[in-house]
């Protein structure tokens, strides 16, 4: 409670001047079909940190582009309404001046960096302003130190990690001294460490430079500490605008609308149904607020009975029954032709029927490892066996009958005029009889629930549907093992859950699944085995329940357990079971605990 009062005090200290004001703004892309924005009203005060969230296609990115003036002054379409930046109306003649006040950073850092060195990258925006050399140097140094990247001046942006690249992108915008910073899913492609880095930099800029922050995101856990006002966008409209505590008061409703609240908030809402002590309390938004609320309640329950219930965690552990080895790597080393080592001493066995999550930081070697499974890469030293056959003895095409590999971005493979043809590409390459090929295609489409899309052009589908098409394409080969490389990267919460439940069905039907991800929530909820990679090595391989309580191993890999696991661990000194993997489990454990 107290922290929220403090926050509103800070807000009243800001000037009453609006940094951004949108009045009844509508926009339709020239080639877009539907209206992307439908009468948006939005007022952001100077120095405010706002969160814009909502399902894919709600118009969040268009809103960001509108605030920085690129819509409609650079991107064509039909525009109605008015945009004011710091009291001045944005139009064709003021757009160039006002654009200086607004900086934008978006999802993929590679798409926004084009310089050869970090220095050049940042100098570019300043050269465009016509600044003298001395000013450029000053601003360059200031911007880099503000994002903590001063040591990387001479580096090529390509050599940096995802989080570092994103910080350079922020510095490049920052150096132009914007009053407002728009960040469009800046952390979607980053690992937990990278996400933390970016969010901390953004908050630092708001505090010390008084920059107004407009954060467009659907991963909320790291942000909730800082957000002043949260906006929900749906179908081009702002449908909810509220202080975070009010915004998240009914987490269930938000989840139905495609927004995943922080896990502690979701847990609170569920726990409230079985514990009347929580009724009337404000929902926690951060881990520490969650612990603050639940610690006394659990301590109170504990007093009733002295011996803690060990069996809660014990009963939840189901012993894995292993099938025969499907993939086994023995002492595998891999170096790229230019000599960079990418895998070091990998020993790994994946059994038939398993659901294995491979987690690790960006660049830890996850993708390189799974590319060995279907022979796209062959080990420099050591052996990789797929059902008793060494991958060096078989071609990728032969291996593709056993191992279905779905790469990160569906745009890297979709090429056909229809979904049907796209999915039939694989079976045709196998030179299967027409009838058999058709049967497989139909089954794959059914399994991914996209039979109704069969005649649509896959190039114009939504990202979530495209993702299903590429999984179906791999399924049509009828492989025993399905390898998915970051399949949920660009999906929102509902889309990701939906896709993974289909994948779980496949696994239940007997297919081995290997899921590469840096999303610990997904790994914890779906995988039955976790492989942790760090710096080209496997540093741990165990069940999620055992992995996620080993904070040290995770820290070594710059990862961290899901928020709900962290919360359970912080409550374990009161006898609460610590090995909790999902909100569902946490709720069950809590219910049992308080009813003893």
């Amino acid at each position, binding site marked *: 409670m107290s922290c929220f009062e403090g926050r509103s005090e800070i807000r009243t200290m800001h000037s009453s001047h609006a940094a951004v004001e949108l009045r009844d703004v509508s926009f339709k892309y020239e080639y877009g079909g539907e209206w992307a924005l439908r009468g948006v009203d939005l007022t952001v005060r100077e120095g405010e940190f706002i969160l814009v969230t909502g399902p894919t296609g709600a118009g969040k990115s268009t809103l960001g582009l509108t605030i920085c003036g690129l819509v409609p002054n650079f991107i064509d379409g039909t525009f109605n309404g008015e945009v004011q930046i710091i009291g001045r109306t944005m139009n064709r003649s003021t757009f160039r001046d006002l654009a200086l006040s607004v900086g934008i950073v978006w999802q993929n850092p590679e798409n926004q960096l084009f310089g*050869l060195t970090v220095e*050049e990258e940042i100098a570019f*925006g300043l050269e465009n302003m016509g600044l*003298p050399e001395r000013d450029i140097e000053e601003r360059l140094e200031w911007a880099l130190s503000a994002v903590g990247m001063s040591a990387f001046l001479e580096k090529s942006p390509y050599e940096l990690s995802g989080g570092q690249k994103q910080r350079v992108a922020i510095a490049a915008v920052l150096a132009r001294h914007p009053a407002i910073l728009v960040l469009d899913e800046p952390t979607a492609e980053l690992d937990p460490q990278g996400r933390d880095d970016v969010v901390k930099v953004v908050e630092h800029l708001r505090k010390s430079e008084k920059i107004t922050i407009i954060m467009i995101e659907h991963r909320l856990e790291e942000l909730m500490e800082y957000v002043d006002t949260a906006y929900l966008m749906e179908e081009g409209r702002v449908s909810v605008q509220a202080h975070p505590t009010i915004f998240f008061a009914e987490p269930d409703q938000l989840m139905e609308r495609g927004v995943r609240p922080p896990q502690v908030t979701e847990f609170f809402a569920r726990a409230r149904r079985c514990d009347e002590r929580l009724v009337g309390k404000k929902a926690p938004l951060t881990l520490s607020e969650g612990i603050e609320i639940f610690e006394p309640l659990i301590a109170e329950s504990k007093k009733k009975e002295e011996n803690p219930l060990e069996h809660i965690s014990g009963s939840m552990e189901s012993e894995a029954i292993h099938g025969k080895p499907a993939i086994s790597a023995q002492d595998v080393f891999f170096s790229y032709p230019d000599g960079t080592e990418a895998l070091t001493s990998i020993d790994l066995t994946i059994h038939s029927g398993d659901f294995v999550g491979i987690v690790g930081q960006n660049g830890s070697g996850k993708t390189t490892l799974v590319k060995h499974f279907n022979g796209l890469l062959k080990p420099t030293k050591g052996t990789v066996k797929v059902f008793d056959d060494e991958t060096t003895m078989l071609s*990728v095409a032969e291996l593709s009958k056993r191992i*279905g590999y*779905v790469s990160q971005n569906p745009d890297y493979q979709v*090429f056909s005029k229809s979904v049907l043809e796209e999915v039939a590409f694989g079976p045709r*390459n196998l030179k299967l009889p027409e009838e058999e090929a058709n049967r497989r295609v139909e089954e794959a489409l059914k399994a991914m629930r996209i039979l109704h899309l069969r005649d649509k052009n896959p190039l114009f589908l939504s990202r979530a549907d495209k993702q299903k098409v590429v999984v179906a394409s791999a399924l049509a080969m009828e492989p025993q093992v399905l390898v998915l490389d970051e399949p949920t990267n660009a999906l929102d919460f509902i889309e990701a859950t939906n896709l993974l439940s289909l994948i779980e069905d496949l696994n239940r039907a007997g297919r081995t699944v290997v899921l590469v991800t840096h999303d610990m929530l997904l790994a914890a909820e779906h995988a039955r085995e976790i492989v942790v990679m760090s710096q080209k090595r496997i540093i741990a391989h165990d069940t999620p329940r055992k992995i996620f309580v080993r904070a040290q191993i995770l820290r070594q890999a710059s990862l961290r357990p899901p928020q709900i696991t962290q919360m359970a661990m912080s409550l374990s000194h009161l006898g609460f079971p610590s090995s909790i993997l999902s909100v569902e489990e946490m709720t069950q454990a809590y219910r049992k605990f308080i009813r003893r």
Partner: protein
Amino acid sequence: MIMPFFFASIITCIVTLAIVVVFLMLAQVPFRAVKPFTSIFYTLVPMMMIAWVFFSRHGTTIFAYGPISVTDEGIFSGALNVVKLVVMVLATGLLLTTTSQRDIIAGFRKLKLPYSLCLMFALALRFIPSVYNDYEQVKSAQMSRGFEFEKEKLVTKAIKFTTILIPMLVISIQKVEYLSIALDSRGLRLGRNVVRTFYKDPQLNSREYGVLGSAIMLVIAILTFKYVFHVLL
């Protein structure tokens, strides 16, 4: 790099090729550094050979069947164009492996070329490795679906190339869109009246000006021979 376009004799081409190779060796450029550039041979050379050798209508016909006709001139121009391609690609490789992009652009600007042109060239160069990387990724994705590019016959190879080409085009268009927004959001303005400064602008020394001058002279000489004296080199 683009000079071979103006060459008509295979001998001139081979001489140029030799010069480029000697320069590559003098600069001690390892083969793997040039490899990304040479990878386009695998697809372009067969396609060029098909186009020139089998579908040429000029010269004495050696063999003809339906729309296919093999002529002596066809074979010759096929060979000539392949050598031209090799020279162009290796010369590009030589330039890019020995000179930093920043220096190339600085050189361009010292020639008083407009900034928009220099920037365009810089961005094109910057995207070469990224296009190569995209190509590798698309190829891997299609191979994972049982596609055997290497095993295909020449003709079907050209047709099946669409399985790689279409994703490449889609990705390139996306990248260009993002790039244009990125450039614009950093306040890029082009035109005569735009004030733009250059941070840490490198200065050319007299030797560099000398080399630059003689290169320009050489280009002018070749063009003069071709268009003024109609002597084909």
